[in-house]
């Protein structure tokens, strides 16, 4: 009998706790409606990566992942709304300050800066930062060549970086092909098409969408 009473007490306590949590959630929702939608410029207040690195207490790479996820979310939200990505460079700089060996944020950040914000120079600066931290990365050298080709249209620089990528360990066969093409066919539309097709085949879903758009602009259909 006393055991039953104990269980009854426990069930009642859990029921009260669930009701209180639900009530607190409702209050929070009401408060949020009053506060209005979160500011789209909230990433302005993201601190510098150097300070976050100090505060991470040895968990820098996990902190970098959180900032990376937040950056992707920021890009995705703005892609569906105003298509303004002003803070993407700032966020990717934080991610790479926290984890300099994480190459994807250099590539993605540079790509967005160049193709969405029309600031290829800032994109190249981010990639240069990546190459200083990862001198053995063929990917960063290759993407620098890519950005020179399609962003700044500096075909000589593109050929130089493609050649550099093709001399680094682990590079795929296409790095050598592009190095040869860039030297011979600088400014050629076919070369740009090949480069964008490579992004369409190997980039993440956002980069693939941009690649399809650029291919359409170059007169290449989605089926090609």
């Amino acid at each position: 009998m006393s055991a039953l009473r104990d269980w009854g007490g426990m069930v009642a306590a859990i029921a009260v706790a669930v009701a209180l949590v639900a009530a607190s959630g409702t209050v929070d929702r009401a408060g949020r409606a009053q506060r209005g939608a979160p500011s789209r410029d909230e990433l302005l207040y993201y601190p510098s990566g150097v300070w976050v690195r100090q505060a991470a207490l040895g968990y820098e790479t996990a902190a970098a992942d959180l900032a990376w996820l937040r950056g992707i979310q920021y890009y995705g939200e703005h892609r569906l709304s105003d298509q303004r990505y002003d803070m993407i460079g700032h966020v990717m700089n934080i991610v790479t300050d926290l984890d300099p060996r994480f190459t994807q944020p250099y590539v993605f950040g540079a790509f967005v800066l160049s193709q969405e914000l029309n600031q290829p120079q800032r994109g190249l600066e981010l990639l240069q930062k990546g190459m200083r931290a990862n001198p053995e990365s063929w990917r960063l050298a290759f993407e620098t060549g890519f950005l020179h080709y399609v962003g700044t249209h500096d075909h000589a620089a593109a050929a130089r970086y493609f050649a550099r990528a093709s001399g680094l360990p682990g590079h795929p066969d296409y790095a050598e092909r592009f190095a040869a093409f860039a030297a011979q066919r600088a400014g050629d539309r076919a070369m740009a098409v090949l480069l964008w097709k490579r992004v369409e085949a190997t980039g993440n879903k956002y980069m693939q969408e941009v690649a399809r758009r650029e291919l359409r602009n170059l007169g290449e259909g989605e089926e090609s």
Partner: protein
Amino acid sequence: MRGVVAIAQNTVREVIRQRVVLVLALFGVGLVAASQVLSPLALGEGRKVVTDFGLAGSSLLATLLVVVLGSSLLHKELERRTIYAVMAKPIRRGEFLLGKFCGLWITAAALVAGMFAIVLGVVTVAYGETPWIVAGAMTLTVLELGVITAIVVFYSSFTTPALTAFFTAATVVAGNFADDLLYFGTQGASLWLARVTEGVYWILPHLTVFNARGSVVHGIAVAPERLAFAAAYGLLYLLALLIVAGAIFERREFR
């Protein structure tokens, strides 16, 4: 030595009785959930994100466990007066302390090994590749926990559980800034300040020695030399702490 082993065994049993296995279960569920939720959001970097969170989570949870459970371990013996029964046997106070240290460290190491096994399992199932390379980071984490356990035992040899937890947490935080402290000390103008900061630097545990999480997630293995140096540093440091803790505990009056 038999006394130390008996106390260590008893400590392991005592800590397990606190349901630390629950921590393992929660960690496993949390990591599986994270791998399912975060992977699609990470734009192809899911494997890195899950491994990172797995390594960081296991180290953080084990550190918290050592601080929370370790800070009251000695105090409980004094409060329940079971220490009188132990001291009546042919065992020295230093051996008692060493047994407590070994028991807590062994339990924390087993917990970390369990959590790393979960990380390996989740990454293997979710991404089809077993990241054996994290074993080096795990070994360093176990060594780091040895140093943190010794810090807990040191503080608990002369102060209360709440202050032990507070001082240990402060020492762990400061230990992560040890290299920065030395750097900033040498940038100042005054020589005596540089000497003081250098002194504090040598006293603080250099916990960055044990952090290879940022390398292994990028496929860079922990070199055997690094493991050997970290093991030597960790064992010397924890031995120094235990000797001082033993000396303090020998002189402590039980009331």
